[in-house]
């Protein structure tokens, strides 16, 4: 882990496109501002962890799936990408 010490209104750069600024410090809370390209997702670390945990739960699919009552499910809307399909 790279450790840098910054004061309020100072910032760091990550790569060429990401700037993290310290906006405000109040007690043990730090307000950070992040400038990044629109397509770069920025999220709290606990969000990443909760998604990883949900992926693990999702991977535990029961061996035998009872027939899922089709009338409770919405109808299919998109075909999966098959061979050669655009």
């Amino acid at each position, binding site marked *: 882990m790279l450790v840098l010490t910054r004061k309020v209104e100072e910032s760091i750069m990550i790569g060429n496109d990401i700037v993290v600024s310290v906006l405000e410090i109040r007690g043990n809370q730090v307000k950070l501002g992040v400038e990044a390209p*629109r*397509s770069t*997702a*920025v*999220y709290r670390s606990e*969000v*990443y*962890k*909760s*998604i*990883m*945990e*949900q*992926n*693990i*739960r*999702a*991977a*535990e*699919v*029961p*061996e035998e*799936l*009872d027939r*899922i009552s*089709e009338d*409770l*499910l*919405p*109808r*299919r*809307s*998109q075909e*999966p*990408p*098959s*061979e*050669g*399909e*655009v």
Partner: protein
Amino acid sequence: MPIIETTRFGDLEVSEKRVIQFPDGLIGFPQWKAFAILEHQEDSPLFWLQSLDLPQLAFLTIDPRLIKPDFLEALHTGDRACLGLEEGSTKFVLALITIPEGRVEEMTANLLAPVVIDPKSRVGRQVILANSGLSTQHPVLRSRPSSD
């Protein structure tokens, strides 16, 4: 045509053209890089995302638009950009389903971090819709009210 062993479907022939590459794997699991999509049942909205690296690994999935009709429209522009939709090309979007302790009627879908696949390049990614306020455990079955 390579033959993939799977726990759920037995041995499958999966042609190279059907393989979907996830360069970064799934969130938390960068090592799972190759998958194929399989139907659950004819005309079912459910699809399996079958790992080609681990035979026992398969995810049940569903298009998030089927359980939340305004899924795309309600997205923040930054999140929509993460899905790659502003490029104008079609993408195949799937939410991973969790079946809590085998209780199928309580299945939920991870709308916060769906999988997006580009059918032309056959590249997939799991994307976090960080601004969406969506849930990792959104109820799937129609008889259930939304929890979020």
